[in-house]
């Protein structure tokens, strides 16, 4: 009984180490492949559209909703201390430093990362990845690189857009609904926020973009089995990349704010 448990625990630990090693190896290959020719500009442009342009509605809606809800909570909270005027300042700080990058990252993990895992997973089970290998083409170079670069470019841009939409969300709630001065809100939103905070937000967007693309592509590339494997790949990709987004957010915040 005891030895069986120890055996299972050992096997689970070995699995984790093996998977981690494989992810690190494939990720390293992806970064090396970024500098290899030929560069497939057409696929890169297509991915810019798939990752970025097509995600604009999702990012706008989630950022608007979250920033408005957050403004409601701040306004309610500060009213307890007769300090409603601080709501705009804290809203700005929260949106720029945390809400915009994290919400964008999590939404993209769900929309883009899962799509990458499903697409590559389907290619694995229909032997298209093997066909690439047989046509002397490295699947990591052909499939990972455009997605990785497009995510690295588009996630910071989407994060910047989420910040702007967050500003509008707070404005809608605090100015249009609660009657704060538009001028004061405009001043307050950026009062506690410096250029460094914007740089931190965009850096987080970049890191989250890399995580989403690498995890999504890797989960798809390592799909095993048929329809069940393809079904599991996106789920597993979203869970893994969301966890890593939250974990890396903590460390990035600690490191970059020092």
């Amino acid at each position, binding site marked *: 009984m005891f030895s069986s448990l120890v055996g299972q625990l050992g096997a689970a630990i070995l699995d984790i180490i093996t998977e981690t090693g494989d992810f690190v190896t494939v990720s390293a290959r992806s970064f090396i492949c970024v500098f290899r020719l030929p560069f497939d500009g057409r696929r890169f442009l297509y991915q810019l559209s798939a990752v970025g342009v097509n995600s604009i509605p999702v990012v706008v809606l989630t950022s608007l909703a979250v920033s408005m809800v957050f403004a409601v909570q701040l306004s309610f909270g500060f009213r307890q201390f007769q300090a409603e005027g601080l709501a705009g300042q804290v809203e700005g700080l929260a949106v720029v430093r945390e809400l915009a990058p994290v919400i964008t990252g999590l939404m993209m993990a769900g929309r883009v990362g899962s799509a990458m895992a499903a697409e590559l997973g389907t290619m694995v089970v229909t032997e298209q990845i093997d066909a690439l290998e*047989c*046509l*002397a083409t490295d699947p990591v170079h052909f499939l990972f690189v455009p997605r990785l670069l497009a995510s690295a470019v588009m996630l910071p841009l989407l994060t910047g857009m989420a910040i702007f939409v967050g500003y509008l969300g707070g404005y809608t709630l605090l100015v249009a609904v609660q009657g704060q001065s538009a001028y004061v809100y405009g001043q307050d939103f950026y009062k506690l926020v410096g250029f460094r905070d914007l740089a931190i937000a965009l850096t987080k967007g970049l890191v989250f973009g890399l995580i989403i693309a690498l995890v999504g592509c890797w989960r798809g590339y390592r799909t095993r089995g048929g329809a069940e494997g393809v079904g599991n790949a996106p789920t597993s990709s979203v869970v893994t990349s969301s966890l890593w987004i939250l974990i890396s957010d903590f460390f990035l915040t600690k490191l970059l704010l020092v």
Partner: protein
Amino acid sequence: MPVIDVVNLSKAFGKKVVLDGVNLSVEEGESLVVLGGSGSGKTVLLRCILGLFRPDAGHVTLEGKVVQDLSRDELAEARKSIGMCFQMAALFDSMSVEENVGFALTRHTKMTPAERDARVEECLNMVGLKGTQKLRPSELSGGMKRRVGFARAIALKPKILLFDEPTTGLDPVMTDVIGKIILDLKTQMGVTSITITHDLKSAFEIADRIAMLFRGKCLAVEKPEAFKVNPDAVIQQFLRGDAEGPFLDDPPPPSLGKRPSAVLPAP
């Protein structure tokens, strides 16, 4: 020196031994057909030849180079001289027929777009699919997909062609068409080829030699005439297509094995 040499090749997946010390060699310009039941290791053999699977023991040499000793770049270079036709075609569904066939030309040659288009058209003509350049794989029938797969495999003018069950799931007429195309490619291009098939008619038409895989082992490699009269009970059962015999681990019970006396309507 054989173009493809398979030496004592063994491969297992977990406890399931798929290939168990297989030896085969294919000379330049020769067409080898590999027969065998489902799960007898035929596709795994092709994948080991292509370097997609790493054998547990033994090795494969391609024109004297040991496949599993090649680096990633060397393997990619070696694969440029091999055309692989997959069982279900494995066309890239995000690309048109033209892009599929021209894929390797775009990536590995310095052809101008006009030269590439001409070569794509030439390849499609060879498989009887003239004018299908703009179609998507989803708009093609099973037989057309296989033929586009053939066209993609021959685009780079490979020295070796590998066919993985090219006629499985096709109607008898399309099966014959595919068999004829393979024969034409063999005569026109003079390539060395390995064909895995269950279709005995086309197997005897295209083969210079026939090999039979059974439970991971190679039972025979011989010329078609000799293969037909090979006394091995497994080979004879396979050629007759009988349910009874040593071929199956779990043959159907006798009552199920009896055939109805008349299955065809009178002409």
